[in-house]
Structures are given as C-alpha cells and as structure tokens.
C-alpha cells in the first residue's frame, strides 16, 4: 500500500514532482496509475457478484432439517383438511385449563387469577431475584430463580412454618444448626402457603414494601389479602403457569 501511494504521488498527484521521464518509464507509471482504480473496480465487482448470489440463495427454497418435531403424518386429502384442522383445534382447546388457573408473570412480578380468557384478580407479587449463592466450604450453588413452566397446586397450608434451609443460614452468615428443630421459623411465610411442587410455594411475606420487585429466593410472595383470596379460589390440582 505504501508503494502504491508513493507511486501515485510520484506520478502526478503531487505537483511538486516534475522530474522529466523517459518514454518507457512513463508507460510504466501510467500502467501503475490505473492499478488502483482497477483493483477497486475488481473488488466492487466481486462484492456485487457475492451480493447477487447471496440474494439468489436467500430466495431458494430449502428443506427443513430434522429436529424434535412431531412425527410427520401424511396430510388429509384437501376435501378433509378443514375438518381435520377443526378436530385438531378442538383437541388443543381440550388441553386448556377448564376452571380457574393461576398465571405468574415473573418479569412483571404479577400473579393473575384467570378463568378462560377472563381475568378474575390481578395481584402484585415478588418473584425470584436471580442471584447466585455459592457455599465457599461445601461447594454448593443455589440460583434464586422462580422456575418457569406449568405446575399445579399440590398443597395448601394454613399458618405455615418455614424450615429454614442451609442457604438462608449461609446468606445471613450464620452457622448451620445441627438440630432440625432450630430451623423452624413460624410466621415468616404469612398466613397461608400454596405448594406447587419441587419445594416452591406461593406464600405471604413480612417484606410487603418489596412487593413488585424481584427479591425472593424462588418462591412467589404475595400480600396478605391477595394470598387469602388466592387460597380461597384455587382448589388442589389448579394449574399454575409461570413465565
């Protein structure tokens, strides 16, 4: 590149260079002078070819690669396609919750009590903080995240007692007690707890001022009134959808 610039400057762009040149060297300089535009034109042409071929490739149909898709069944005949699609829609609708169900929006920290498309109650909650706690001694790790997915109400407990787990002691810098009875913490979970499996609950909280923020250790915290209404509305087996 340095040579090219030097050549261009020497050939005439730099007016200060006015050395008389012999005929063969002038031809040589003229040839080199055309080199830069030619290189640019070639590069642009190559780019153009690549762009056009890319556009053509993008418009070419490509088969879908194999994946975890449903087993391919042959399509019904065109005359029966509408009826078959209607049948599929009915089967899909049959899977939806029939009665009341709970939807938890972990990003917005909201819990919705719904029946079909009807919203029965919207509640402010506190979901998982997403923080990570590592046990420096035991090497254990906890991620305080509310799990996403479809769960169901498995238990309803009045005046629940929190059995303080190891991570709570570690987080607070306290020694982990050997006696299990020392772990019992009544009143920490509010008046009710609704179990959804895997150790997760929708329960009350002492920290009501933090409702609406992601501060919990994975459970869903609710205010007293909302929790009471929820417990009254959801029978065992009610679906809890968390996203």
């Amino acid at each position, binding site marked *: 590149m340095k040579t090219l610039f030097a050549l261009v400057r020497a050939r005439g762009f730099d007016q200060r260079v006015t050395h008389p040149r012999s005929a063969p060297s002038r031809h040589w300089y003229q040839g080199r002078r055309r080199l830069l535009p030619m290189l640019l034109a070639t590069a642009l042409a190559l780019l153009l070819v*690549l*762009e*056009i*071929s*890319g*556009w053509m*490739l*993008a*418009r*070419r149909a*490509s*088969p*879908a*690669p194999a*994946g*975890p*898709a*449903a087993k391919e069944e042959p*399509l019904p005949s065109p005359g029966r*396609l*509408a009826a*078959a*699609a209607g049948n*599929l829609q009915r*089967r*899909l609708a049959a*899977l*939806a*919750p029939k009665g009341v169900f709970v*939807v938890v929006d972990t*990003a*917005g920290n909201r819990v919705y009590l719904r029946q079909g498309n009807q919203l029965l109650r919207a509640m402010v909650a506190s979901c998982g*903080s*997403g*923080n*990570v*706690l*590592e*046990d*420096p001694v035991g090497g254990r790790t906890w*991620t305080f995240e509310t799990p*996403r*997915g*479809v769960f169901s109400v498995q238990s309803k407990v009045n005046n629940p007692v929190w059995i303080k787990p190891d991570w709570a002691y*570690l*987080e*607070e*810098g*306290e*020694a982990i007690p050997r006696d299990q009875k020392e772990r019992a913490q009544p009143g920490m979970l509010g008046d009710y707890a609704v179990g959804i499996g895997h150790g997760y609950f929708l329960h009350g909280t*002492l*920290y009501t001022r*933090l409702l609406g*923020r*992601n*501060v919990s*250790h994975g459970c869903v915290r609710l205010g007293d009134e909302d929790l009471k209404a929820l417990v009254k509305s959801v029978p065992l087996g009610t*679906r809890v*959808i968390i*996203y």
Partner: protein
Amino acid sequence: MLQRLLFCLFCFSLGAALPAAAAAPGEVFPADYRLLRQELHLAKENQIYFVFDLPAHQVSFRASGLSVAELPLAGWRLWGHPREPRIDVLVEKDTLAEPQRTKIRVAPAAETPTLTAGGDLQALEIDDMPVRYQLLFDDGTVIRVAPCARGVFGRIIDGWRWAAWCLSRPLISDWKFFRGKPYTELVLVLQPRDAQLLYWSFTAGGRSLIRWPLR
C-alpha cells in the same frame, strides 16, 4: 460521483426509516394444519412455548394451547426462505451486553450479615434485560429482536442499520452456503419492554413455533 452516492445512501436510509414490511394476509391451509399438529404436540408436553405468529403480528406465550401473554409486533422482515412448520428449540441467546447475575457474598459467621432477603435489591430484573439480541435455534434459524425506533434520529440510525443488514445478509448466505447450511433470519421489531420480556421468558431449551406468512 461522491455526491450521487451520498444522495443514494440518504434516500436508502429514508426508505428504511419507513415501517418494516407488513405480512401478507392470507392462509396456507396445509401449513396451518401442520402448525396445529405441532402445537398439539407441544401443548401436551405441559410446558410454556412461544408462537411467533407473523401474519397476526404477535408473539404469544402459550401453555396447554392457551395464550397467557401476547406481545404485538411493530414490524418484521425476513431474510431467506420460510421453513416448513416445525418445533424450534432455542439453543442460545446472543447479545452484546448479557445481563449478569449477582453473586451473593457469603459473610463469615462472626460478621454481621450485610445481605438479607429484603435488605438488598441487587437482583436480576426486567430492566436489566437487553432490548437488542439474537435468538439462535437448533435448525440454524436466527431471530433478531430489535426495539422500535423512536424519534427522527432513531429512525435514521435504524435506517442505516437496515442498510447494513441488507448488505451483509447476502454475504452471510454465501458463507452458509459454502458451509452447506441454509440461512434464515427473521427480524422482529418489538416495543423495548416487550423485547425485554421475551428475553426474560424465552430461555435456552425453550420451544417455539413460527407461523410464516403466505409468500
């Protein structure tokens, strides 16, 4: 020459500032039937799944065939060819500024606890989520999520981004072709909050369906 080039680029960016291409209304009945079949398969799995419904201009979060949240699309555009209806599995989320989880410092037993359940608000919240990112699927499909441009300046910047996108996609298609892989990229334009919500909710391993428009 340079002036003409600049004028062309200016016109190009102005054109790009217009709303993204709208979906062509219409139905491909066999494709819809296949999609329904795939959705039934997903709904039986009892998990959350995501449907990118391009003709309806929305992304919906569904469980058991029921829509629990819907995010309207402000626009979308496609590079490549729409794939056959299939269940796409999210492999990775790619962004320049990935949100980081806070590691809780464990205090020694003798030390006064500095972090309590309610006392510290260092948490991963929706505001920490990016608004511009890519979702990479198992079949190589890429969904690029971008926020709505706001203001004239934002629209012009978006126009330049679009120009760069249009110029770079053919080169990626070429590169993928030489590697024997087809390339399909979908750009979704969402409201910033909705883009953050999608990033939050759609985690690696999540399933989704894309309903393509009639071409």
